[in-house]
């Protein structure tokens, strides 16, 4: 979940990925034997739990153990999904949500780069704006929605304002941190070569700060997607994937809700994956 107050830890998806794929720093005898004796390829192991869950779900919904209307069968979810896709309802909701998400993301990131750059480069600006900014980001982001709804209405304008805010905060925090944490050695080298201030900024500071800047932008992408859902729950006017879920919940249509969750998961994964791909491309020349 996005919280404006803390950007120090890299986002879960990255962590999980790295934790899963980093080379083991050790090979303890107990676990290494257990892996070597197992014949099942590791790739397939991850599929065991989901398949098991699916089988149980299927089995329970096929029998008459529970007569609750909420227990929909997997087939029904698939059917609803196909229906939503065929009727164009999914596409309308998804495109509305994504358009808002990307607008808010772009605006927030642009603002965040400027503000973060200012805070990073100018000690004076940091002193004047930094404490206020830090206090501001402590306040739970979603608490602003009622105020934003009074000021900007319930439509797209309010949502985009909220999304920009959600995207702005991590970018500012990471850009200013990245710039301020450039190692002094690099700056000393720059001084030895008698770089001009412009050269220092372009050739030393910006390249050194780039990974941190990218983390900020990456977080902004994730947070604005999260905020898109929140905005659609709380500012209910208009259409979007969040509205689809809320409607499904109000109409007691579990199939629609489950399908919506799957779509949200896929979109979140796609945003994640594309950001990570871009990161790998950008930093391919760097040795990690």
């Amino acid at each position, binding site marked *: 979940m996005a919280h404006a107050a803390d950007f120090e830890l890299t986002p879960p998806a990255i962590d*999980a990925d790295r934790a899963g794929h980093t080379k083991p720093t050790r090979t303890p005898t107990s676990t290494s034997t257990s892996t070597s004796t197992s014949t099942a390829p590791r790739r397939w192991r991850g599929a065991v*739990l989901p398949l098991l869950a699916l089988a149980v779900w299927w089995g329970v919904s096929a029998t008459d153990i529970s007569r609750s209307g909420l227990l929909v069968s997997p087939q029904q979810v698939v059917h609803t999904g196909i229906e939503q896709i065929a009727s164009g309802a999914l596409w309308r909701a998804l495109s509305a949500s994504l358009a808002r998400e990307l607008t808010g993301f772009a605006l927030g990131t642009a603002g965040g780069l400027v503000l973060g750059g200012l805070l990073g*480069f100018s000690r*004076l600006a940091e002193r004047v704006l930094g404490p206020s900014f830090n206090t501001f980001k402590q306040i739970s982001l979603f608490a602003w929605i009622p*105020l934003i709804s009074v000021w900007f209405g319930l439509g797209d304008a309010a949502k985009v304002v909220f999304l920009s805010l959600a995207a702005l905060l991590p970018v500012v925090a990471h850009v200013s941190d990245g710039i301020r944490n450039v190692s002094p050695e690099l700056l000393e080298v720059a001084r030895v070569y008698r770089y001009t201030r412009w050269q220092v900024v372009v050739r030393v500071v910006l390249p050194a700060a780039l990974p941190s800047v990218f983390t900020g932008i990456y977080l902004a992408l994730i947070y604005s997607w999260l905020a898109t859902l929140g905005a659609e729950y709380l500012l209910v006017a208009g259409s979007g994937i969040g509205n689809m879920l809320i409607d499904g919940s109000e109409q007691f249509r579990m199939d629609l809700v489950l399908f919506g969750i799957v779509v949200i998961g896929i979109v979140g994964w796609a945003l*994640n994956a594309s950001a990570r791909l871009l990161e790998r491309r950008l930093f391919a020349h760097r040795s990690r």
Partner: protein
Amino acid sequence: MSDTAIERSLAHPAPRPTEGRRGWTEYARTLRWQILPFIVPVLLFSLWLAGSSFGWIAPQVLPAPHLVLETLLDLARSGDLWSNTWISLSRVLVGFAGGTALGLLLGSSLGMSRTLESYVLPSFNALVQIPVLGWLPFLLLLVGIGEPLKYLLIGQAALVPVTLSTLQGFRQAPAAYYEVADVFRYSRWQLITEVVFPAALPTIATGVRLAFTKAWLALVVVELVASSQGLGYLIVYGRQLFQLDLVMAAVIVVGAIGYVIDRLLNALEARLTRGARRAFRAF
């Protein structure tokens, strides 16, 4: 960009008062430096004050500061503030404690067994892609609008960062520690409690702090969307009645509590981290 941070760090590091040599100019400079952070809040506040007292801003758009303060005092006097704060706090504590405990358990078991990790982690990663907000309508249907909904959502918000940071912390323990433990013929339990866990503690502490901020955020969201009590509900209620003073008073309380608890956890984290470092020096 006349005075860049780099420029300063190259020329004269930080404008810090140097001990011993403290002239009047030095004092003036320090004083100015101390005042700087207050400029923006004071400016904003006076704009707000002026705007509302001269009638530039309609009270329906932004109520006057004294009105917000009055509402806050009213809430405190009538007891509404305390009862709602208490409800919110107890929700977040139950959810956070449950989520953190489960996260520690899950993260450490994944950290200790690569076999388990290879079975569970992919599913976990897939579920993580769905934000807490995505689960809200689902759980709303499943468990209704009562307290369990809040506990589950807040717990899930806390579970994810704790699990991942615990896993990461367990993985990060240097190979040398394991070798030492091997030499001393530590049992598996000793290995966990005396080597791996202390080594992982700083990472876990960071995860727990993050988990709290996420739990607090989840609380606000769930109270905004589905609740009839609590601080988030106060915000929604004020919004529905167009009582923006109530909205702002509740937002201030939410922000203040979040801030205070974050500071507390930060101090705790610093202490734990320092303790852990000291422990390692014994090796």
